[in-house]
């Protein structure tokens, strides 16, 4: 039988045994979709209690989904899952993902994913050329930066190969180490670069000559084109121009670029041949949203290194394979505050000075190579605090939980302006997660913050009713009512985005400037009118040919989220008590006042009522925070229910 959407095989690599085999994707596909979903099932089956991030037994699970490599808007993504060294207080199973072109190429080579276990005796890289899979010696690239590694592999295997690799940060087990592809596509959060490093796996290079077959090609084509048409011009700022400002473009070789395959949008620029400031020479790199913080010129990021140095710093960070987000939203703000309070004023004899590009480069290199104080900074803020016994209260204001800095939640994160009560939903997204939920959970707080500048709250409330079931879900006059539904909605949506996969900056498609009421819709002869909330479902059905009802499709997301919770319960003893540990962070004053015009903080009593409502709606036990047997049975997870029963003893 022809397989549509997926390509049918998962590559299994055992680095200790130097053995490669394949397994059948379709065993998991219908129940767990792909990407993060299939990864969760594999982790449940294979990664038990007591596995540390750097153990040979830790599986690095790299999974695409049924839409990767297809025309589906912004679908060129890949999930990276496993026990993550960045998680705190102990490494635990979580996820990250990246855009780019690596995942598509992997599918064109015939694999939906790669599960890597074991540890190579000496540095190796994995080469995949359609059916030919080899482990090759990486002696010549071990120690190289990510750009130079890719250059070497392209020279050796052809300029059209796609590479996922690590830089010195990953090799040196830095907890902020990313898996990098091209200049700025990276699986950042979690520190999976260090997992590759611990396995002595420098890179994966892939070339595929195949395609992804589509069940209903005509229907799929028209859906993709219609969604893209609606999308074009649907931003609050309207569509960015195709060409950059001529002066800047000429000076810095600026080019608009889609960061991932099939993306009709642009979130950043490609800066080319920009002269360095800290060091002579030129730099070329793509710069996404967070990389802009290197420059400063912001009320909190109050330095200004200038455009040229900001490109240089982004390029240096990308080459070293460091996580921009954790660096710029966590470690750097923490160091800045430590300096302001006189707790840490220098790094190995050099004064902390973020207005000096030279300082930045040396700081990043010290972290990446674990030199001097860098050896401690490489452990990332929560563990630095433990080791140095300094700056604990500063860290608590920047880090809500799990070792990940704030993100669209109105408190620690100084870069994103979200206000009360939108971050009440953010708090509900954080409290049951295993990491920062926002790399695939922007749908509520970011989108509403932005669109509230464009549309009236009345208009938004109507969209809220359409999407989340009640006008109260987005109405600022009801801060502690109907907030669980959008939180669960966005958590499940994030599973869909990480599993199909689809990009979080583009999806979900709720808002449109093309419709009178502002709610995104497309109309096609075959389907009639489809609301924005259902775009994903129709793409999935047309691509895979699985004719399941929309409710069943959404249940897959609920199943995956619940299974991830079961992993937490079984492997890490996760309870309600741990969930509530995020409350103090939200009880501090918010960064920016919202419509009430005064700075708000979380009301614990009212929030705890939402917490109970959350567990109830999720079908989790209110006292323990465990998924109930009934819920697991309902989701078709009988074996999971049985295993959790045994834990109860």
């Amino acid at each position, binding site marked *: 039988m022809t397989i549509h959407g997926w390509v049918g095989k998962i590559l299994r690599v055992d680095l200790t045994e130097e053995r490669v085999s394949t397994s059948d994707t379709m065993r998991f596909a219908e129940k767990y979709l792909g990407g993060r979903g299939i990864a969760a099932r594999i982790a449940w089956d294979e990664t038990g209690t007591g596995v540390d991030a750097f153990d040979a037994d830790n599986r690095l699970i790299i999974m695409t989904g049924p839409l990767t*490599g*297809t*025309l589906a808007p912004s679908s*060129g993504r890949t999930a990276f899952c496993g026990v993550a060294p960045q998680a705190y207080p102990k490494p635990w199973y979580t996820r990250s993902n990246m855009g780019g*072109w690596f995942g598509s190429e992997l599918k*064109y080579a015939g694999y939906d994913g790669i599960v890597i276990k074991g540890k190579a005796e000496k540095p190796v890289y994995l080469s995949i050329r359609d059916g030919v899979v080899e482990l090759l010696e990486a002696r010549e690239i071990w120690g190289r930066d990510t*750009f130079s590694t*890719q*250059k070497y592999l*392209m020279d050796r295997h052809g*300029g*059209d190969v796609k590479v996922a690799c690590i830089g010195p940060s990953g090799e040196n087990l830095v907890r902020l180490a990313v898996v990098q592809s*091209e*200049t700025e596509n990276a699986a950042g959060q979690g520190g999976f670069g260090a997992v590759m490093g611990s396995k002595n796996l420098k890179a994966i290079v892939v070339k*595929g*000559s*195949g*395609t*992804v*077959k*589509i069940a209903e*090609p*005509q229907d*799929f*084509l028209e859906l*993709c*084109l219609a969604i*893209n048409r609606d*999308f*074009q011009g649907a931003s609050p700022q309207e569509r960015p121009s*195709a*060409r950059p400002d001529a002066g800047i473009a000429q000076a810095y*070789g600026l*080019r*608009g*670029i*889609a960061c*991932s*395959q*099939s*993306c*009709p*949008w*642009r979130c950043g620029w*490609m*800066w*080319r041949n920009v002269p360095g400031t800290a060091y002579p020479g030129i730099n*070329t*790199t*793509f710069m996404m949203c967070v990389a802009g913080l290197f420059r400063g010129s912001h009320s909190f990021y109050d330095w200004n290194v200038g455009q040229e140095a900001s490109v240089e710093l982004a390029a240096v960070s990308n080459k070293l394979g460091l996580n921009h987000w954790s660096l710029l939203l966590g470690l750097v703000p923490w160091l800045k505050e430590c300096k302001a309070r006189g707790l840490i004023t220098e790094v190995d004899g050099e004064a902390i000075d973020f207005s000096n590009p030279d300082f930045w480069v040396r700081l990043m290199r010290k972290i990446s190579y674990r030199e001097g104080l860098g050896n401690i900074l490489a452990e990332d803020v929560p563990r630095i605090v433990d080791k140095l016994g300094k700056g604990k209260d500063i860290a608590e204001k920047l880090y809500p939980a799990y070792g990940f800095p704030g993100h669209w939640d109105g408190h620690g994160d100084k870069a994103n302006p979200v206000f009360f009560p939108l971050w009440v939903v953010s708090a509900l997204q954080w409290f049951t997660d295993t990491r920062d939920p926002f790399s695939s959970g922007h749908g509520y707080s970011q989108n509403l913050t932005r669109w509230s500048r464009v549309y009236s709250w009345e208009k938004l409330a109507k969209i809220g009713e359409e999407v989340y079931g009640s006008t109260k879900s987005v109405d600022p006059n009801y801060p502690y009512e109907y907030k669980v539904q959008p939180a669960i909605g966005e958590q499940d949506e994030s599973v869909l985005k990480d599993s199909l996969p689809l990009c979080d900056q583009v999806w979900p498609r709720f808002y449109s400037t093309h419709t009178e009421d502002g709610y995104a819709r497309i109309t096609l002869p075959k389907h009639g009118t489809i609301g924005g909330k259902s775009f994903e479902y129709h793409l999935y059905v047309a691509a895979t040919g699985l004719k399941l009802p929309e409710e069943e499709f959404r249940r897959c997301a609920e199943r995956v989220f619940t299974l991830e919770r079961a992993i937490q319960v079984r492997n890490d003893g996760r309870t309600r008590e741990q969930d509530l540990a995020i409350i103090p962070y939200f009880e501090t004053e918010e960064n920016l006042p919202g419509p009430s015009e005064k700075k708000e903080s979380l009301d614990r009593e009212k929030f705890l009522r939402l917490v109970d409502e959350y567990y109830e709606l999720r079908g989790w036990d209110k006292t323990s925070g465990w998924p109930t047997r009934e819920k697991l049975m309902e989701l078709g997870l009988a074996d999971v229910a049985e295993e959790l029963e045994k834990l109860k003893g």
Partner: protein
Amino acid sequence: MNAVPRSGVVIADKSICHGCGICELACSLSHKGACGPALSSIGVLRDPLAGDFFPETCKQCQFPSCYYTCPVEAIVIEPKTGARVIDGEKCKGCGACAKACPYNELETIIRRDSERGIYFKCDLCTGLNREPICVEACPWKALSYVPANERRGK
């Protein structure tokens, strides 16, 4: 060489191409029912480390080497658009056209369909009965279609 009727052509503006590859996938999906550059008649060349990329389209030459070279006359001139089209029924898969094409050094213009063992190239979507799908799909309008009667030069 006998002149053949002039053809329309898809042209690309490299300066605004965002390298997303939507043109490639819209092409392969509409013509072959599958997504992948390997079955696309338009090719986006990418040099990611240099931040450089551009779409390579079939020039639909005034004096098409592919057409003159084909030993089995499998390349036909489509009457409506003038597109130089490989007739999949006639193609024997020898690859003479792919070698003869002066722009095909990276195999982006005439490609081999490895499943069917035959070659294929841009047909200006005449088979689909619509204007070229790559032009319609490009989100940045980096591609445009110039019909035969508006085409200048070679």
